[in-house]
């Protein structure tokens, strides 16, 4: 490679990154509204106070975009490039799950205390979704013990727990892939013996574009809110 070409290459490289040096270039129009929504959905273009309750107007959060484009947003879990094996023995990336809302939980199959409850919570959530929506979303159970939970084992677990339908997916990843994914969900876990883990009990709901919309933490908690969030996504 001759020197002048090299310089040119560097120059072009620099240029191409310089062009995206501003933060969030594609920002939508900002809008302010009253936090109490005294005037319903009315918005203002600049800061100020609500004429009704005199509260300071606040910035209106942008609603997350929905997935009918190929673009994925910065917040999407589909940015993860880790590889996963399903209980059917297929190898996928998370973005292969794109297009349907996702309900995700991290468990491991040899767990006796919390996971049966988490699995039951998932089942209870799925029972509250109208039958005709069954195919419109995906329940994903990710193993935090990829060494033990092979696709074969996950398949057996699925059958045992009557979660072998199309809408259920079980995933085995690599050790580092699981750690990274847990970090995206803010799930904590720790191996405390060859077969046991401590872990957070979190069920997460993602929209079809892979953006986190809701998390439910705890065991056997009231899942009304979670179900409502899922129904909102199915509308």
């Amino acid at each position, binding site marked *: 490679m001759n020197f002048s070409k090299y310089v040119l290459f560097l120059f072009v490289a620099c240029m191409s990154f310089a062009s995206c040096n501003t933060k969030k270039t594609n920002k939508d129009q900002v809008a302010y509204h009253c936090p109490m929504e005294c005037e319903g959905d009315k918005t203002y273009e600049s800061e100020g106070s609500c004429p009704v309750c005199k509260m300071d107007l606040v910035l209106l959060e942008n609603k997350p975009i929905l997935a009918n484009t190929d673009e994925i947003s910065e*917040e999407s879990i589909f940015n993860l490039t880790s590889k996963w094996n399903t209980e059917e023995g297929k190898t996928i990336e998370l973005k292969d799950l794109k297009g349907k809302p996702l309900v995700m939980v991290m468990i491991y199959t040899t767990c006796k205390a919390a996971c049966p409850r988490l699995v039951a919570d998932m089942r209870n959530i799925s029972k509250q979704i109208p039958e005709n929506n069954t195919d419109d979303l995906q329940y994903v159970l990710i193993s935090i013990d990829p060494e033990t939970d092979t696709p074969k084992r996950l398949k057996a677990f699925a059958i045992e727990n009557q979660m072998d339908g199309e809408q259920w997916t079980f995933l085995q990843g690599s050790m580092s892939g699981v750690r990274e994914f847990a970090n995206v969900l803010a799930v904590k876990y*720790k191996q405390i013996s060859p077969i046991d883990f401590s872990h957070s009990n979190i069920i997460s709901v993602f929209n079809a574009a892979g953006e986190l919309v809701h998390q439910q933490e705890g065991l056997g908690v009231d899942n009304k809110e979670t179900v409502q969030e899922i129904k909102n996504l199915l509308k």
Partner: protein
Amino acid sequence: MNTVLRLMICILFSWITNVNCQSKMVSIEGGSYIPLYGRDSMKVTIADFYMDVYPVTNKEFQQFLDDTPKWRRSNVKRLFADDNYLMSWSSDTALSENQSLKAPVTNVSWFVANDYCECQGKRLPTVDEWEYVAMANEELPDARTIKGYNEYILSWYEKPKTFNNEIGSTFKNYWGVYDLHGLVWEWTLDFNSVLVSGESRKDVDNDSNLFCGSAAIGATDLMNYAAFMRYAIRGSVKAKYTMKNLGFRCVKDNNQ
């Protein structure tokens, strides 16, 4: 291409001097010890490994950004770093005037730290490895019961703004590692294995039923409150968080 060239130079030079492309490492002899949060005096065993002598510096990180555009401030995905990512830098690849090249890089997320180490053929240390090396003072591999050792750590909690001090400004420990205490917090590979909730009083009451395998968090030594704070900080962060007082260093397995 650029990288290949760089590596060539690197390999050439590394025989002679420690240039910045690969920071210096020392070998750590494995062993077993009881960490702060163990199960009823459960020992953990550490295999031999290599650890960076210093935390990763602003200068090293700047070079990494030259080679890895996806981690520059304007390109980084929000999933992988929060809004404070490299907030003190004046641009995508330039430090601001008041930042020292030799200071540890901070305001970096777990994701970028993880990637940085992997790009070098290394990895982040586990909590257990980090704590194992950090037990040492100048003379002893395990100085946790020495008053002066704890006082040194605690005095750091009371010193403001140490994140712009240069690497090597603290003591050289038994293993030849610097700056584990007294400079900045450091990321660990499995920081999210620390199940400290915000309700610390709950964490110690053996409420084991919330966890599979009933691993309640019990401190083996409640007096070891210097370490408590490290666990608290690990429990309070998420992987995309970036903080002024939080940097990282890498380790490598010893496969011999």
